[in-house]
């Protein structure tokens, strides 16, 4: 292939896509078997995940090699930008499904179960003792069985102005540090670039650490689990998927950090950095949504 940057770079046939496909296939087969209670499934799942990691490292090293060889023209760069932006948009829509579920549950289904509006008959005949409150700790079936959640001071379940606030500050600062890293990169100042990146990774890790602590607290002391009704469901699914994204983002920033140390980026040409930075900001914004709607209001 030509390495001039006038023509659009079309890669040679590559084995990574099919390796990736097989890896995902294996992962899902393993996952399915595991969920169906087969121990062997866990093994296959592990192999699948390993294969996914292998694929990513292989694919991305090809990309890095091509990028370093100067194969990517301005136009290719723009393709990547479109690609990354719309990928992030698809992630936004994925979270939108869960936020939508949260709103539906809080605004419609829980009040209905509690007898508001269209839920009058539902409440009267099916869940007479249920009270619609949020966060929901005494679920309709508990109310029906006459069981109360032991935690009555509901607003204090996961207080917004405690660890979550710290986490908000952590993530917001990590948005700042990555921007500072970007500024350093644009001026070709490699040392500050690396330091700011390292700071970002660190903030991400501390965030996840606190999050895990919060989960442990919820499970062990608050009796708030995935199984404890919709409050637990929405809480853990939203924060859980977010935490997973933070972990992925931090990993990516870590890779960018290593590449920065190797001097892969120039002040002009560093899309990989920017793509990851966009992703990090997206994770940040999702957190703000979470903070407001899951913890605060």
């Amino acid at each position: 292939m030509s390495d001039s940057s006038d023509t659009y770079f079309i890669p040679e046939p590559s084995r990574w896509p099919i390796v990736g496909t097989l890896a995902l296939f294996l992962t899902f087969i393993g996952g399915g078997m595991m969920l169906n209670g087969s121990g062997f499934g866990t093994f296959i799942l592990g192999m699948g995940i390993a294969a996914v990691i292998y694929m990513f490292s292989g694919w991305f090293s090809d990309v890095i090699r091509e990028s370093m060889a100067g194969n990517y023209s301005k136009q290719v760069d723009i393709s990547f930008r479109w690609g990354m932006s719309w990928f992030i948009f698809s992630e936004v829509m994925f979270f939108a499904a869960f936020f939508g579920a949260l709103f539906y549950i809080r605004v419609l289904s829980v009040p209905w179960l509690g007898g508001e509006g269209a839920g009058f008959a539902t409440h009267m005949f099916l869940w007479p003792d249920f009270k619609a409150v949020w966060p929901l700790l005494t679920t309709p079936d508990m109310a029906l069985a006459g069981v109360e959640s032991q935690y009555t001071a509901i607003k204090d379940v996961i207080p917004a102005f405690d660890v979550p606030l710290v986490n908000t500050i952590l993530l917001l600062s990590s948005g700042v540090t990555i921007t500072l890293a970007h500024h350093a990169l644009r001026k070709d100042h490699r040392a500050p670039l690396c330091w700011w990146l390292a700071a970002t990774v660190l903030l991400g890790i501390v965030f996840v650490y606190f999050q895990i602590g919060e989960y442990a607290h919820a499970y062990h002391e608050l009796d708030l689990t995935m199984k404890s009704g919709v409050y637990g469901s929405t809480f853990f699914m939203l924060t859980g998927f977010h935490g997973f994204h933070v972990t992925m983002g931090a990993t990516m920033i870590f890779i960018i950090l290593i590449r920065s140390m190797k001097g892969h980026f120039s002040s002009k040409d560093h899309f990989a950095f920017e793509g990851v930075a966009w992703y990090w900001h997206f994770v940040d914004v999702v957190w703000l949504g979470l903070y407001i709607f899951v913890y605060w209001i």
Partner: protein
Amino acid sequence: MSDAAVHDDHHDHKPTGIGRWLFSTNHKDIGTMYLIFALTMFFVGGAMAMVIRAELFQPGLQFVNPQFFNSMTTVHALVMIFGALMPAGVGLANWMIPLMIGAPDMAMPRMNNMSFWLLPFSFTLLLSTFFMEGGAPAGGWTMYPPLVFQLGDGFPFLIFAVHLLGISSIMGAINIIATVFNMRAPGMTFMRLPLFVWTWIITAFLLIAAMPVLAGGVTMLLTDKFFGTAFFDAAGGGDPLLFQHVFWFFGHPEVYILVLPSFGIISQIIPTFARKPLFGYSSMVYATASIAFLSFFVWAHHMFAVGMPLAGELFFMYATMMIAVPTGVKIFNWTATMWKGSMTFETPMLFAIGVLFMFSIGGFSGVMMGITPVDFQYHDTYFIVAHFHYVIVPGIIFGIIGGIYYWLPKWTGHMYDETLGKWHFWLSTISVNVLFFPMHFIGLAGMPRRIPDYSTQFADWNAIISIGGIVFGLSQLIMVWVVIKCIRGGEKATDEVWEGAHGLEFTLPSPPPFHSFTTPPEVTEASAHS
């Protein structure tokens, strides 16, 4: 394929062997694989439809037990929608978009490969559930909880198959957007894009906005079943209807994801055979965009009977009715394109005309169902089945078939057999109406959908429907024959292929070189819109 059309040898070395397909980064090869896969799935899904129609040929149970019947209905729909129609659309997009906008290939060729290969594996997961304890999914393609939780070991595989499909579609859509936004030849402005390209950009946006929501929805199903969450369980404060909202928030845009590429195809075909420029180009673009936009606000018309508050029912009724307006604009524009044209009726044109008439029939029943109080009666009867098969089979499949006939000479370098093509069209058109029109009657008269056995007053119509189904199914074998024959040889196709054809794809040789436009062509106002 012939090698006659090689102009630039340096760029035209093709990879060989199985590696050419497994590792492909070529939009044409990937497009071909998509199309072959889609055709295969069409036959798999069609075979399931034949099981359905065989069982429904007479009242009483003859061949399959009710559980298996439900699996047939469910998997038929999943296979047809996700395995046949969507891949066919993406396959055509892969083949044609780079040719139409003057690009060398898709923007991200490796990702393109992965989008394709995920599909066969995803369907392997889905179809393997037939051999699992508890059988294949049988809760309807809509996967409503709590029924879907009653599926046995197949359950996680159903969910994961949907995840894989989602990943595939999202990657495909991102690729199309990047290609169209970034790889247009100089002078190919947005308002000069062929309509097929336009409909595909809009479809791609719909995909990126809708598929992740479905992925989220089925993820909640998974956690409800295996991890004790209560999204869809009233006992924990959730609501089974929540899933329906999530599903249809995806599901309604999904039907436009299916239909828009077909609209794009007939917008290419009709001007060619009317020998007249497309009427109202810009209003076509805006109408398509409005359809897509509105499609996010009508989802609950699938849920009128669930007992929504009055305000919701009214809102979704009005929004649904509004979609008829931009769709009407498109229908009228196509009609106006034919008006005072110089019409000939080659097979692609016949199929396009078929779309105009029969899609409209499906659209009319759609508007009827959009009227909430009467939909209380129509809902979940064969009237619905009639509606969506009209919009889907003669509305979309016909469009795709038309596209295949239209571009087949371009792809293979040979003209197809016109006589056989016409046979295919007429047999399909007659049988498809025998197949789906009487469904309106039995639906109105009270036959529910998704039942393996029915009351005797519906017997005669069902027999007729089944006969129509068999004839329609068999007629599709003609197409396979035509395609194979055309690949093997036949009269040489010119570059332009059709007398009235315009567009960059018709400036390339037939078949086009392995790498499309290695040097981008110049596009001018005149060359774009004539």
